[in-house]
Protein backbone atom coordinates (compact mmCIF):
# COMPACT_ATOMS: atom_id res chain seq x y z
CA UNK A 1 0.00 0.00 0.00
CA UNK A 2 2.76 2.46 0.93
CA UNK A 3 4.14 1.80 -2.53
CA UNK A 4 0.85 2.95 -4.06
CA UNK A 5 1.01 6.11 -1.98
CA UNK A 6 4.52 6.81 -3.21
CA UNK A 7 3.54 6.17 -6.81
CA UNK A 8 0.50 8.41 -6.42
CA UNK A 9 2.70 11.11 -5.00
CA UNK A 10 5.08 10.92 -7.97
CA UNK A 11 2.22 10.91 -10.49
CA UNK A 12 0.64 13.86 -8.69
CA UNK A 13 3.92 15.74 -8.83
CA UNK A 14 4.12 15.13 -12.58
CA UNK A 15 0.50 16.36 -12.84
CA UNK A 16 1.34 19.50 -10.98
CA UNK A 17 4.23 20.26 -13.32
CA UNK A 18 2.05 19.67 -16.36
CA UNK A 19 -0.72 21.93 -15.08
CA UNK A 20 0.54 25.03 -16.94
CA UNK A 21 -0.28 23.22 -20.21
CA UNK A 22 -3.93 23.20 -19.11
CA UNK A 23 -3.95 26.60 -17.49
CA UNK A 24 -7.07 27.98 -19.14
CA UNK A 25 -9.40 25.07 -18.53
CA UNK A 26 -8.02 24.43 -15.03
CA UNK A 27 -8.54 28.09 -14.16
CA UNK A 28 -12.12 27.93 -15.39
CA UNK A 29 -12.75 24.98 -13.07
CA UNK A 30 -11.18 26.83 -10.14
CA UNK A 31 -13.30 29.90 -10.83
CA UNK A 32 -16.56 28.03 -11.22
CA UNK A 33 -15.96 26.25 -7.90
CA UNK A 34 -15.07 29.60 -6.33
CA UNK A 35 -18.30 31.11 -7.62
CA UNK A 36 -20.47 28.34 -6.19
CA UNK A 37 -18.66 28.48 -2.86
CA UNK A 38 -18.97 32.27 -2.69
CA UNK A 39 -22.69 32.17 -3.48
CA UNK A 40 -23.40 29.53 -0.86
CA UNK A 41 -21.19 31.31 1.67
CA UNK A 42 -23.14 34.50 0.94
CA UNK A 43 -26.48 32.89 1.71
CA UNK A 44 -25.21 31.08 4.77
CA UNK A 45 -23.56 34.27 6.02
CA UNK A 46 -26.88 36.04 5.61
CA UNK A 47 -28.73 33.35 7.49
CA UNK A 48 -26.07 33.28 10.18
CA UNK A 49 -26.01 37.07 10.50
CA UNK A 50 -29.77 37.18 10.85
CA UNK A 51 -29.66 34.52 13.55
CA UNK A 52 -26.98 36.43 15.40
CA UNK A 53 -28.98 39.68 15.22
CA UNK A 54 -32.05 38.06 16.71
CA UNK A 55 -30.22 35.91 19.22
CA UNK A 56 -28.53 39.06 20.51
CA UNK A 57 -31.94 40.56 21.11
CA UNK A 58 -33.13 37.98 23.56
CA UNK A 59 -32.51 37.51 27.25
CA UNK A 60 -33.76 34.51 29.14
CA UNK A 61 -34.31 36.62 32.28
CA UNK A 62 -37.07 38.55 30.57
CA UNK A 63 -40.53 37.15 29.96
CA UNK A 64 -42.83 38.30 27.20
CA UNK A 65 -46.49 37.54 27.88
CA UNK A 66 -48.60 37.01 24.78
CA UNK A 67 -52.34 36.54 24.56
CA UNK A 68 -54.77 34.80 22.26
CA UNK A 69 -52.92 31.58 21.58
CA UNK A 70 -50.12 33.01 19.51
CA UNK A 71 -46.43 32.73 20.15
CA UNK A 72 -45.42 35.97 18.51
CA UNK A 73 -46.25 39.60 19.12
CA UNK A 74 -47.99 39.94 15.78
CA UNK A 75 -51.64 39.06 16.38
CA UNK A 76 -51.26 38.85 20.14
CA UNK A 77 -53.75 40.66 22.33
CA UNK A 78 -53.86 40.89 26.10
CA UNK A 79 -57.10 42.13 27.69
CA UNK A 80 -56.77 45.04 30.11
CA UNK A 81 -58.40 43.08 32.96
CA UNK A 82 -55.79 40.36 32.69
CA UNK A 83 -53.07 42.91 33.26
CA UNK A 84 -54.94 44.48 36.17
CA UNK A 85 -55.44 41.05 37.73
CA UNK A 86 -51.80 40.18 37.35
CA UNK A 87 -50.69 43.46 38.87
CA UNK A 88 -53.08 42.94 41.75
CA UNK A 89 -51.69 39.52 42.62
CA UNK A 90 -49.53 39.47 45.65
CA UNK A 91 -46.84 36.97 46.43
CA UNK A 92 -43.85 35.83 44.49
CA UNK A 93 -44.49 34.19 41.15
CA UNK A 94 -41.02 34.73 39.72
CA UNK A 95 -41.43 38.34 38.58
CA UNK A 96 -39.19 41.06 40.00
CA UNK A 97 -40.90 43.92 41.80
CA UNK A 98 -39.71 47.48 42.34
CA UNK A 99 -39.10 49.16 45.69
CA UNK A 100 -42.79 50.01 46.01
CA UNK A 101 -43.74 46.36 45.44
CA UNK A 102 -45.18 46.81 41.94
CA UNK A 103 -44.28 44.36 39.18
CA UNK A 104 -41.55 45.61 36.85
CA UNK A 105 -43.57 45.47 33.66
CA UNK A 106 -43.99 47.20 30.35
CA UNK A 107 -47.16 47.02 28.22
CA UNK A 108 -46.27 47.25 24.56
CA UNK A 109 -47.73 47.49 21.09
CA UNK A 110 -46.03 47.44 17.72
CA UNK A 111 -47.16 49.64 14.87
CA UNK A 112 -45.74 49.09 11.42
CA UNK A 113 -45.36 52.24 9.40
CA UNK A 114 -44.71 52.71 5.74
CA UNK A 115 -41.85 55.14 5.42
CA UNK A 116 -40.39 56.71 2.31
CA UNK A 117 -36.85 57.74 3.22
CA UNK A 118 -36.41 60.16 0.33
CA UNK A 119 -38.42 61.20 -2.67
CA UNK A 120 -38.17 58.61 -5.45
CA UNK A 121 -37.14 55.78 -3.16
CA UNK A 122 -39.10 52.68 -2.36
CA UNK A 123 -41.14 52.85 0.83
CA UNK A 124 -39.72 50.80 3.69
CA UNK A 125 -41.59 49.41 6.63
CA UNK A 126 -40.47 50.48 10.08
CA UNK A 127 -41.53 49.14 13.45
CA UNK A 128 -42.62 51.70 16.04
CA UNK A 129 -42.93 50.21 19.50
CA UNK A 130 -45.05 51.95 22.06
CA UNK A 131 -44.04 51.05 25.62
CA UNK A 132 -44.33 52.03 29.24
CA UNK A 133 -41.55 54.13 30.71
CA UNK A 134 -40.02 51.00 32.23
CA UNK A 135 -39.75 49.36 28.80
CA UNK A 136 -36.16 50.34 28.03
CA UNK A 137 -35.13 48.99 31.45
CA UNK A 138 -36.60 45.57 30.73
CA UNK A 139 -34.11 44.99 27.94
CA UNK A 140 -30.60 43.74 28.49
CA UNK A 141 -27.65 45.02 26.55
CA UNK A 142 -29.40 48.18 25.35
CA UNK A 143 -27.57 51.46 25.87
CA UNK A 144 -28.67 54.98 25.13
CA UNK A 145 -25.89 56.07 22.83
CA UNK A 146 -27.06 59.62 22.35
CA UNK A 147 -29.73 62.00 23.68
CA UNK A 148 -32.37 60.88 26.17
CA UNK A 149 -35.42 58.61 26.46
CA UNK A 150 -38.92 59.66 25.42
CA UNK A 151 -41.07 61.43 28.00
CA UNK A 152 -44.56 60.15 28.83
CA UNK A 153 -47.30 61.68 26.68
CA UNK A 154 -44.87 63.58 24.49
CA UNK A 155 -44.62 62.69 20.76
CA UNK A 156 -40.98 61.79 21.10
CA UNK A 157 -39.08 58.82 19.72
CA UNK A 158 -35.85 57.02 20.57
CA UNK A 159 -34.36 55.44 17.47
CA UNK A 160 -32.32 52.27 17.09
CA UNK A 161 -28.81 52.62 15.74
CA UNK A 162 -29.51 50.71 12.49
CA UNK A 163 -32.39 52.98 11.59
CA UNK A 164 -30.44 56.08 12.48
CA UNK A 165 -27.61 54.86 10.25
CA UNK A 166 -29.73 53.64 7.33
CA UNK A 167 -32.25 56.41 6.94
CA UNK A 168 -31.78 60.16 6.68
CA UNK A 169 -33.72 62.48 8.95
CA UNK A 170 -33.32 60.63 12.24
CA UNK A 171 -30.75 62.96 13.77
CA UNK A 172 -31.50 64.10 17.28
CA UNK A 173 -33.72 67.16 17.30
CA UNK A 174 -35.16 66.42 13.87
CA UNK A 175 -38.85 65.94 13.22
CA UNK A 176 -40.04 62.83 11.43
CA UNK A 177 -43.49 62.17 10.03
CA UNK A 178 -44.67 58.72 11.08
CA UNK A 179 -48.20 57.98 10.00
CA UNK A 180 -50.20 61.19 10.07
CA UNK A 181 -48.26 62.99 12.76
CA UNK A 182 -44.81 64.49 13.34
CA UNK A 183 -42.52 63.05 15.99
CA UNK A 184 -39.34 64.49 17.48
CA UNK A 185 -36.20 62.40 17.65
CA UNK A 186 -34.81 62.72 21.19
CA UNK A 187 -32.37 59.83 21.48
CA UNK A 188 -30.49 56.97 19.81
CA UNK A 189 -29.92 53.56 21.32
CA UNK A 190 -27.59 50.68 20.49
CA UNK A 191 -27.67 46.97 21.32
CA UNK A 192 -24.59 45.34 19.76
CA UNK A 193 -26.18 45.05 16.34
CA UNK A 194 -29.16 43.03 17.57
CA UNK A 195 -32.63 43.29 16.06
CA UNK A 196 -33.64 45.96 18.64
CA UNK A 197 -31.58 48.43 16.66
CA UNK A 198 -34.16 48.19 13.88
CA UNK A 199 -36.95 49.50 16.16
CA UNK A 200 -38.22 52.93 17.09
CA UNK A 201 -39.42 53.35 20.64
CA UNK A 202 -42.05 55.77 21.94
CA UNK A 203 -44.47 56.23 24.82
CA UNK A 204 -47.32 53.72 24.87
CA UNK A 205 -50.20 56.14 25.38
CA UNK A 206 -48.91 58.56 22.76
CA UNK A 207 -48.50 55.76 20.27
CA UNK A 208 -51.96 54.38 20.97
CA UNK A 209 -53.47 57.83 20.47
CA UNK A 210 -51.53 58.54 17.27
CA UNK A 211 -52.51 55.27 15.63
CA UNK A 212 -55.97 54.80 17.06
CA UNK A 213 -55.05 51.80 19.17
CA UNK A 214 -56.61 52.96 22.41
CA UNK A 215 -56.55 50.38 25.13
CA UNK A 216 -54.58 47.81 23.15
CA UNK A 217 -51.74 45.76 24.63
CA UNK A 218 -49.98 43.21 22.44
CA UNK A 219 -47.32 42.08 24.81
CA UNK A 220 -46.39 42.49 28.44
CA UNK A 221 -42.74 42.44 29.28
CA UNK A 222 -41.71 41.34 32.78
CA UNK A 223 -38.34 40.98 34.42
CA UNK A 224 -37.91 37.54 35.97
CA UNK A 225 -35.74 36.62 38.94
CA UNK A 226 -34.01 34.17 36.64
CA UNK A 227 -34.70 31.92 33.67
CA UNK A 228 -36.30 29.20 35.79
CA UNK A 229 -39.01 31.57 37.05
CA UNK A 230 -40.80 31.37 33.70
CA UNK A 231 -42.77 28.26 34.65
CA UNK A 232 -44.15 29.72 37.89
CA UNK A 233 -45.21 32.78 35.93
CA UNK A 234 -47.02 30.59 33.44
CA UNK A 235 -48.83 28.76 36.26
CA UNK A 236 -49.99 32.13 37.58
CA UNK A 237 -51.17 33.24 34.13
CA UNK A 238 -53.61 30.32 33.94
CA UNK A 239 -55.74 31.82 36.69
CA UNK A 240 -56.12 35.46 35.80
CA UNK A 241 -58.04 35.60 32.54
CA UNK A 242 -60.44 33.83 30.20
CA UNK A 243 -57.98 34.62 27.41
CA UNK A 244 -55.18 32.12 26.95
CA UNK A 245 -51.99 33.79 28.10
CA UNK A 246 -48.54 32.46 27.49
CA UNK A 247 -45.22 33.73 28.79
CA UNK A 248 -42.20 32.96 26.66
CA UNK A 249 -38.66 33.94 27.38
CA UNK A 250 -37.49 36.82 25.27
CA UNK A 251 -34.59 34.67 24.08
CA UNK A 252 -36.95 32.00 22.75
CA UNK A 253 -39.23 34.54 21.14
CA UNK A 254 -36.44 35.97 19.03
CA UNK A 255 -34.70 32.68 18.45
CA UNK A 256 -37.91 31.22 17.02
CA UNK A 257 -38.27 34.17 14.66
CA UNK A 258 -34.62 33.92 13.71
CA UNK A 259 -34.95 30.22 13.05
CA UNK A 260 -37.85 30.71 10.68
CA UNK A 261 -36.29 33.46 8.62
CA UNK A 262 -32.84 31.90 8.65
CA UNK A 263 -34.44 28.68 7.42
CA UNK A 264 -36.11 30.55 4.59
CA UNK A 265 -32.80 32.12 3.57
CA UNK A 266 -31.14 28.71 3.59
CA UNK A 267 -34.10 27.15 1.84
CA UNK A 268 -33.46 29.52 -1.00
CA UNK A 269 -29.68 29.50 -0.81
CA UNK A 270 -28.99 25.76 -0.73
CA UNK A 271 -31.00 24.79 -3.83
CA UNK A 272 -29.52 27.66 -5.77
CA UNK A 273 -26.00 26.72 -4.70
CA UNK A 274 -26.65 23.03 -5.39
CA UNK A 275 -28.01 23.82 -8.82
CA UNK A 276 -24.91 25.86 -9.57
CA UNK A 277 -22.80 23.07 -8.09
CA UNK A 278 -24.27 20.60 -10.58
CA UNK A 279 -23.16 22.90 -13.38
CA UNK A 280 -19.75 23.30 -11.80
CA UNK A 281 -19.45 19.51 -11.40
CA UNK A 282 -20.13 19.06 -15.10
CA UNK A 283 -17.45 21.67 -15.74
CA UNK A 284 -15.03 19.89 -13.43
CA UNK A 285 -15.74 16.61 -15.21
CA UNK A 286 -14.97 18.25 -18.53
CA UNK A 287 -11.78 19.84 -17.20
CA UNK A 288 -10.52 16.58 -15.75
CA UNK A 289 -11.42 14.58 -18.85
CA UNK A 290 -9.28 16.91 -20.90
CA UNK A 291 -6.58 16.63 -18.25
CA UNK A 292 -6.55 12.86 -18.70
CA UNK A 293 -6.49 13.29 -22.47
CA UNK A 294 -3.66 15.78 -22.16
CA UNK A 295 -1.64 13.44 -19.94
CA UNK A 296 -2.40 10.23 -21.85
CA UNK A 297 1.17 9.63 -23.02
CA UNK A 298 2.66 10.46 -19.62
CA UNK A 299 0.23 8.22 -17.77
CA UNK A 300 0.82 5.40 -20.24
CA UNK A 301 4.59 5.84 -20.02
CA UNK A 302 4.59 5.70 -16.23
CA UNK A 303 2.26 2.70 -16.34
CA UNK A 304 4.63 1.01 -18.79
CA UNK A 305 7.47 1.63 -16.33
CA UNK A 306 5.47 -0.22 -13.69
CA UNK A 307 3.32 2.41 -12.00
CA UNK A 308 -0.02 1.02 -10.84
CA UNK A 309 -3.52 1.72 -12.07
CA UNK A 310 -4.46 2.93 -8.62
CA UNK A 311 -1.78 5.61 -8.70
CA UNK A 312 -3.04 6.87 -12.08
CA UNK A 313 -6.56 6.97 -10.65
CA UNK A 314 -5.69 8.70 -7.38
CA UNK A 315 -3.35 11.22 -8.97
CA UNK A 316 -6.12 12.30 -11.33
CA UNK A 317 -8.63 12.46 -8.52
CA UNK A 318 -6.26 14.47 -6.34
CA UNK A 319 -5.70 16.92 -9.17
CA UNK A 320 -9.48 17.48 -9.31
CA UNK A 321 -9.68 17.88 -5.54
CA UNK A 322 -6.67 20.19 -5.47
CA UNK A 323 -8.19 22.45 -8.12
CA UNK A 324 -11.53 22.42 -6.26
CA UNK A 325 -9.67 23.18 -3.05
CA UNK A 326 -8.06 26.25 -4.59
CA UNK A 327 -11.48 27.29 -5.87
CA UNK A 328 -13.04 26.77 -2.44
CA UNK A 329 -10.36 28.83 -0.73
CA UNK A 330 -10.77 31.61 -3.30
CA UNK A 331 -14.55 31.50 -2.92
CA UNK A 332 -14.35 31.64 0.87
CA UNK A 333 -11.82 34.44 0.72
CA UNK A 334 -13.99 36.38 -1.72
CA UNK A 335 -17.09 35.91 0.42
CA UNK A 336 -15.21 36.91 3.53
CA UNK A 337 -13.76 40.03 1.95
CA UNK A 338 -16.97 40.83 0.11
CA UNK A 339 -19.76 39.90 2.49
CA UNK A 340 -18.48 39.74 6.03
CA UNK A 341 -19.95 42.64 7.99
CA UNK A 342 -22.09 43.66 5.05
CA UNK A 343 -25.24 45.41 6.23
CA UNK A 344 -28.42 43.82 5.04
CA UNK A 345 -32.03 43.97 5.99
CA UNK A 346 -35.03 41.76 5.71
CA UNK A 347 -38.60 41.72 6.78
CA UNK A 348 -38.89 40.36 10.29
CA UNK A 349 -41.71 38.82 12.25
CA UNK A 350 -43.54 42.11 12.76
CA UNK A 351 -43.52 42.81 9.03
CA UNK A 352 -41.02 45.55 9.66
CA UNK A 353 -37.53 45.54 8.29
CA UNK A 354 -34.80 44.15 10.50
CA UNK A 355 -31.23 45.09 9.84
CA UNK A 356 -28.37 42.67 10.36
CA UNK A 357 -24.79 42.04 9.33
CA UNK A 358 -23.72 39.18 7.09
CA UNK A 359 -21.49 36.97 9.14
CA UNK A 360 -18.99 34.64 7.44
CA UNK A 361 -18.32 32.37 10.42
CA UNK A 362 -16.27 29.20 10.69
CA UNK A 363 -19.16 26.89 9.94
CA UNK A 364 -20.29 29.05 7.03
CA UNK A 365 -16.78 28.60 5.58
CA UNK A 366 -16.79 24.90 6.38
CA UNK A 367 -20.14 24.22 4.70
CA UNK A 368 -19.40 26.28 1.61
CA UNK A 369 -15.87 24.85 1.40
CA UNK A 370 -17.12 21.27 1.66
CA UNK A 371 -19.55 21.87 -1.20
CA UNK A 372 -16.59 23.13 -3.26
CA UNK A 373 -14.56 20.02 -2.42
CA UNK A 374 -17.54 17.82 -3.27
CA UNK A 375 -17.60 19.38 -6.74
CA UNK A 376 -13.97 18.34 -7.23
CA UNK A 377 -14.43 14.90 -5.71
CA UNK A 378 -17.52 14.10 -7.80
CA UNK A 379 -16.42 15.81 -11.00
CA UNK A 380 -13.02 14.10 -10.76
CA UNK A 381 -14.32 10.60 -10.06
CA UNK A 382 -15.20 9.51 -13.59
CA UNK A 383 -12.02 11.01 -15.12
CA UNK A 384 -10.00 9.27 -12.40
CA UNK A 385 -11.59 5.99 -13.40
CA UNK A 386 -10.99 6.82 -17.07
CA UNK A 387 -7.29 7.29 -16.26
CA UNK A 388 -7.10 3.66 -15.15
CA UNK A 389 -8.74 2.45 -18.37
CA UNK A 390 -6.33 4.12 -20.77
CA UNK A 391 -5.39 1.55 -23.39
CA UNK A 392 -1.63 1.52 -22.91
CA UNK A 393 -0.73 0.12 -26.29
CA UNK A 394 -2.76 2.73 -28.16
CA UNK A 395 -1.42 5.52 -25.96
CA UNK A 396 2.20 4.47 -26.50
CA UNK A 397 1.61 3.95 -30.22
CA UNK A 398 0.37 7.54 -30.53
CA UNK A 399 3.29 8.96 -28.61
CA UNK A 400 5.11 10.38 -31.64
Amino acid sequence: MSNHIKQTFIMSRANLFSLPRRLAISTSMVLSVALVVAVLAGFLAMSKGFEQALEGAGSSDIAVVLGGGTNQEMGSDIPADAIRNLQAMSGDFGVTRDAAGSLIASREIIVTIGFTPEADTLPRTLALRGMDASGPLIRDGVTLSDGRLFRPSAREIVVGARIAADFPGFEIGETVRLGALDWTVVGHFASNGSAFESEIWADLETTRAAFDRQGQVQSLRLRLHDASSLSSLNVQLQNISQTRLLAVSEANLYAAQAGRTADIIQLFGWPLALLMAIGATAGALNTMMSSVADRTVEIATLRALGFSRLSACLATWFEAIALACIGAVLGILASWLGFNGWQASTVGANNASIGFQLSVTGDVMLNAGLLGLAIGALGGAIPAFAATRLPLTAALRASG
Partner: protein
Amino acid sequence: MTNTQPYISIRHLQKGYKIGGEAISIFDGLDLDIPNGDFVAIMGPSGSGKSTLLNMLAGIDRPDAGELRIGNSYLNQMGEGARASWRAHNMGIVFQFYNLLPMLNAAENVELPLLLKPLSAKDRRDRVRKVLDLVGLSGRERQYPSMMSGGQQQRVGIARAIVSDPGLLLCDEPTGDLDRKSADDVLQMLRFLNQELGKTIIMVTHDPEAAKYAKRVLHLDKGNFVEEKRAA
Protein backbone atom coordinates in the same frame (compact mmCIF):
# COMPACT_ATOMS: atom_id res chain seq x y z
CA MET B 1 14.72 -21.97 -13.75
CA THR B 2 17.07 -24.66 -14.92
CA ASN B 3 19.83 -24.04 -17.44
CA THR B 4 18.16 -26.12 -20.09
CA GLN B 5 15.13 -23.86 -20.05
CA PRO B 6 15.28 -20.83 -22.36
CA TYR B 7 14.96 -17.48 -20.60
CA ILE B 8 11.89 -16.54 -22.64
CA SER B 9 9.47 -19.07 -24.00
CA ILE B 10 6.37 -18.44 -26.09
CA ARG B 11 4.05 -21.35 -26.87
CA HIS B 12 0.97 -21.46 -29.13
CA LEU B 13 0.46 -17.77 -28.60
CA GLN B 14 -2.64 -16.25 -30.14
CA LYS B 15 -3.42 -12.58 -30.45
CA GLY B 16 -5.89 -10.62 -32.51
CA TYR B 17 -7.73 -7.34 -32.54
CA LYS B 18 -11.25 -6.35 -33.36
CA ILE B 19 -11.29 -3.55 -35.89
CA GLY B 20 -14.72 -2.17 -36.67
CA GLY B 21 -16.44 -5.32 -35.43
CA GLU B 22 -14.22 -7.52 -37.57
CA ALA B 23 -11.76 -9.79 -35.79
CA ILE B 24 -8.30 -9.88 -37.30
CA SER B 25 -5.71 -12.38 -36.16
CA ILE B 26 -2.12 -11.22 -35.79
CA PHE B 27 -0.59 -14.29 -34.15
CA ASP B 28 -2.15 -17.72 -34.41
CA GLY B 29 0.01 -20.28 -32.63
CA LEU B 30 3.33 -18.44 -32.37
CA ASP B 31 6.26 -20.33 -30.78
CA LEU B 32 9.52 -18.64 -29.84
CA ASP B 33 12.46 -19.28 -27.51
CA ILE B 34 15.01 -16.69 -26.52
CA PRO B 35 17.96 -17.72 -24.36
CA ASN B 36 19.41 -15.62 -21.61
CA GLY B 37 21.93 -13.04 -22.86
CA ASP B 38 20.60 -13.01 -26.41
CA PHE B 39 20.39 -9.87 -28.55
CA VAL B 40 17.53 -10.34 -31.01
CA ALA B 41 16.45 -7.97 -33.74
CA ILE B 42 12.86 -8.39 -34.90
CA MET B 43 12.20 -7.15 -38.42
CA GLY B 44 9.19 -7.27 -40.65
CA PRO B 45 6.75 -5.18 -42.63
CA SER B 46 4.71 -2.49 -40.98
CA GLY B 47 1.62 -3.89 -39.35
CA SER B 48 3.04 -7.40 -39.07
CA GLY B 49 2.73 -7.39 -35.28
CA LYS B 50 6.24 -6.50 -34.10
CA SER B 51 5.07 -3.91 -31.58
CA THR B 52 2.23 -6.15 -30.50
CA LEU B 53 4.70 -8.93 -29.69
CA LEU B 54 7.02 -6.56 -27.86
CA ASN B 55 4.12 -5.14 -25.85
CA MET B 56 3.09 -8.63 -24.79
CA LEU B 57 6.68 -9.37 -23.75
CA ALA B 58 6.56 -6.12 -21.73
CA GLY B 59 3.33 -7.16 -20.03
CA ILE B 60 1.62 -4.07 -21.42
CA ASP B 61 -0.58 -6.15 -23.69
CA ARG B 62 -1.77 -9.69 -23.06
CA PRO B 63 -2.14 -12.70 -25.32
CA ASP B 64 -5.60 -14.04 -26.13
CA ALA B 65 -4.37 -17.60 -25.64
CA GLY B 66 -1.15 -19.58 -25.29
CA GLU B 67 1.74 -19.35 -22.92
CA LEU B 68 4.20 -16.51 -22.41
CA ARG B 69 6.90 -17.17 -19.85
CA ILE B 70 9.79 -14.89 -18.94
CA GLY B 71 12.13 -16.31 -16.31
CA ASN B 72 9.75 -17.86 -13.82
CA SER B 73 6.84 -15.58 -14.58
CA TYR B 74 3.92 -16.70 -16.71
CA LEU B 75 2.73 -13.32 -17.98
CA ASN B 76 -0.31 -14.86 -19.64
CA GLN B 77 -1.64 -15.88 -16.21
CA MET B 78 -0.97 -12.62 -14.43
CA GLY B 79 -3.48 -9.85 -13.81
CA GLU B 80 -2.98 -6.18 -14.54
CA GLY B 81 -1.60 -5.28 -11.11
CA ALA B 82 0.82 -8.21 -10.99
CA ARG B 83 2.12 -7.38 -14.46
CA ALA B 84 2.65 -3.71 -13.50
CA SER B 85 4.75 -4.77 -10.55
CA TRP B 86 6.55 -7.36 -12.71
CA ARG B 87 7.39 -4.58 -15.20
CA ALA B 88 8.80 -2.45 -12.41
CA HIS B 89 11.23 -5.16 -11.35
CA ASN B 90 12.13 -7.26 -14.37
CA MET B 91 12.45 -5.30 -17.57
CA GLY B 92 13.46 -2.00 -19.06
CA ILE B 93 11.68 -0.51 -22.03
CA VAL B 94 13.01 1.90 -24.67
CA PHE B 95 10.53 3.73 -26.89
CA GLN B 96 10.89 5.04 -30.44
CA PHE B 97 9.86 8.53 -29.32
CA TYR B 98 11.80 8.33 -26.03
CA ASN B 99 8.67 9.04 -23.91
CA LEU B 100 10.51 11.22 -21.45
CA LEU B 101 8.36 13.30 -19.12
CA PRO B 102 8.87 16.85 -20.41
CA MET B 103 8.53 18.53 -17.02
CA LEU B 104 11.25 16.41 -15.44
CA ASN B 105 14.97 16.88 -16.08
CA ALA B 106 17.25 14.06 -17.25
CA ALA B 107 18.12 12.85 -13.76
CA GLU B 108 14.49 12.93 -12.60
CA ASN B 109 13.36 11.01 -15.68
CA VAL B 110 15.99 8.35 -15.09
CA GLU B 111 15.08 8.17 -11.41
CA LEU B 112 11.41 7.25 -12.09
CA PRO B 113 11.78 3.44 -12.08
CA LEU B 114 13.89 3.62 -8.91
CA LEU B 115 11.05 5.36 -7.10
CA LEU B 116 9.15 2.09 -7.30
CA LYS B 117 11.83 0.40 -5.21
CA PRO B 118 12.76 0.64 -1.55
CA LEU B 119 15.92 2.70 -2.05
CA SER B 120 17.24 5.67 -0.12
CA ALA B 121 17.51 9.04 -1.86
CA LYS B 122 21.28 8.73 -1.80
CA ASP B 123 21.23 5.27 -3.38
CA ARG B 124 18.94 6.57 -6.08
CA ARG B 125 21.17 9.57 -6.76
CA ASP B 126 24.25 7.34 -7.02
CA ARG B 127 22.57 4.93 -9.41
CA VAL B 128 21.21 7.73 -11.60
CA ARG B 129 24.67 9.32 -11.80
CA LYS B 130 26.22 5.95 -12.67
CA VAL B 131 23.88 5.16 -15.57
CA LEU B 132 23.96 8.70 -16.96
CA ASP B 133 27.74 8.31 -16.90
CA LEU B 134 27.41 5.00 -18.69
CA VAL B 135 25.36 6.52 -21.53
CA GLY B 136 27.73 9.45 -21.83
CA LEU B 137 25.51 12.12 -20.33
CA SER B 138 27.33 13.05 -17.15
CA GLY B 139 27.00 16.75 -16.53
CA ARG B 140 23.59 16.90 -18.19
CA GLU B 141 21.59 15.73 -15.18
CA ARG B 142 19.66 18.99 -14.90
CA GLN B 143 18.85 19.41 -18.58
CA TYR B 144 15.26 19.10 -19.68
CA PRO B 145 14.30 16.87 -22.64
CA SER B 146 13.33 19.91 -24.72
CA MET B 147 16.94 21.13 -24.49
CA MET B 148 18.41 17.86 -25.82
CA SER B 149 18.93 16.36 -29.26
CA GLY B 150 17.06 13.19 -30.24
CA GLY B 151 20.17 11.09 -29.70
CA GLN B 152 20.66 12.51 -26.23
CA GLN B 153 17.01 12.00 -25.34
CA GLN B 154 17.20 8.38 -26.43
CA ARG B 155 20.30 7.90 -24.28
CA VAL B 156 18.28 9.23 -21.33
CA GLY B 157 15.61 6.72 -22.35
CA ILE B 158 18.16 3.90 -22.26
CA ALA B 159 19.52 5.09 -18.93
CA ARG B 160 15.97 5.01 -17.55
CA ALA B 161 15.48 1.48 -18.93
CA ILE B 162 18.61 0.09 -17.26
CA VAL B 163 18.72 2.10 -14.04
CA SER B 164 16.98 -0.56 -11.98
CA ASP B 165 19.29 -3.19 -13.50
CA PRO B 166 16.73 -5.46 -15.18
CA GLY B 167 17.87 -8.55 -17.04
CA LEU B 168 15.65 -7.83 -20.04
CA LEU B 169 15.66 -4.80 -22.31
CA LEU B 170 12.83 -4.29 -24.81
CA CYS B 171 13.34 -1.66 -27.52
CA ASP B 172 10.68 -0.69 -30.07
CA GLU B 173 12.43 0.99 -32.98
CA PRO B 174 14.89 2.74 -30.67
CA THR B 175 16.68 4.39 -33.58
CA GLY B 176 13.62 4.99 -35.74
CA ASP B 177 13.66 8.70 -35.12
CA LEU B 178 17.43 9.29 -35.12
CA ASP B 179 20.02 10.27 -37.70
CA ARG B 180 22.65 7.69 -38.67
CA LYS B 181 25.34 8.94 -36.34
CA SER B 182 23.07 9.11 -33.27
CA ALA B 183 21.56 5.75 -34.22
CA ASP B 184 25.00 4.15 -34.31
CA ASP B 185 25.83 5.61 -30.89
CA VAL B 186 22.65 4.17 -29.44
CA LEU B 187 23.21 0.78 -31.07
CA GLN B 188 26.81 0.69 -29.82
CA MET B 189 25.42 1.27 -26.38
CA LEU B 190 22.91 -1.57 -26.68
CA ARG B 191 25.65 -3.89 -27.88
CA PHE B 192 27.75 -2.86 -24.89
CA LEU B 193 24.87 -3.55 -22.53
CA ASN B 194 24.42 -6.97 -24.11
CA GLN B 195 28.05 -7.99 -24.31
CA GLU B 196 29.51 -6.40 -21.17
CA LEU B 197 26.55 -6.38 -18.80
CA GLY B 198 24.83 -9.53 -20.08
CA LYS B 199 21.43 -7.97 -20.72
CA THR B 200 19.01 -9.87 -22.88
CA ILE B 201 17.85 -7.45 -25.56
CA ILE B 202 14.90 -7.69 -27.92
CA MET B 203 14.86 -4.90 -30.46
CA VAL B 204 12.23 -4.17 -33.08
CA THR B 205 13.64 -2.31 -36.07
CA HIS B 206 13.01 -1.42 -39.67
CA ASP B 207 16.63 -0.67 -40.31
CA PRO B 208 18.88 -3.48 -41.65
CA GLU B 209 21.94 -1.54 -40.43
CA ALA B 210 20.52 -1.57 -36.92
CA ALA B 211 19.77 -5.27 -37.16
CA LYS B 212 23.47 -5.95 -37.79
CA TYR B 213 24.24 -5.06 -34.19
CA ALA B 214 22.10 -7.97 -32.98
CA LYS B 215 23.29 -11.53 -32.51
CA ARG B 216 20.42 -12.80 -34.61
CA VAL B 217 17.52 -11.47 -36.62
CA LEU B 218 13.94 -12.74 -36.66
CA HIS B 219 11.73 -11.90 -39.62
CA LEU B 220 8.09 -11.62 -38.83
CA ASP B 221 5.70 -11.93 -41.74
CA LYS B 222 2.18 -13.03 -42.60
CA GLY B 223 0.87 -12.85 -39.08
CA ASN B 224 2.03 -15.83 -37.14
CA PHE B 225 5.02 -16.99 -39.10
CA VAL B 226 8.51 -16.29 -37.74
CA GLU B 227 11.47 -16.98 -39.95
CA GLU B 228 14.87 -17.03 -38.37
CA LYS B 229 18.06 -16.04 -40.13
CA ARG B 230 21.61 -15.76 -38.82
CA ALA B 231 22.95 -12.28 -39.20
CA ALA B 232 25.78 -12.11 -41.69
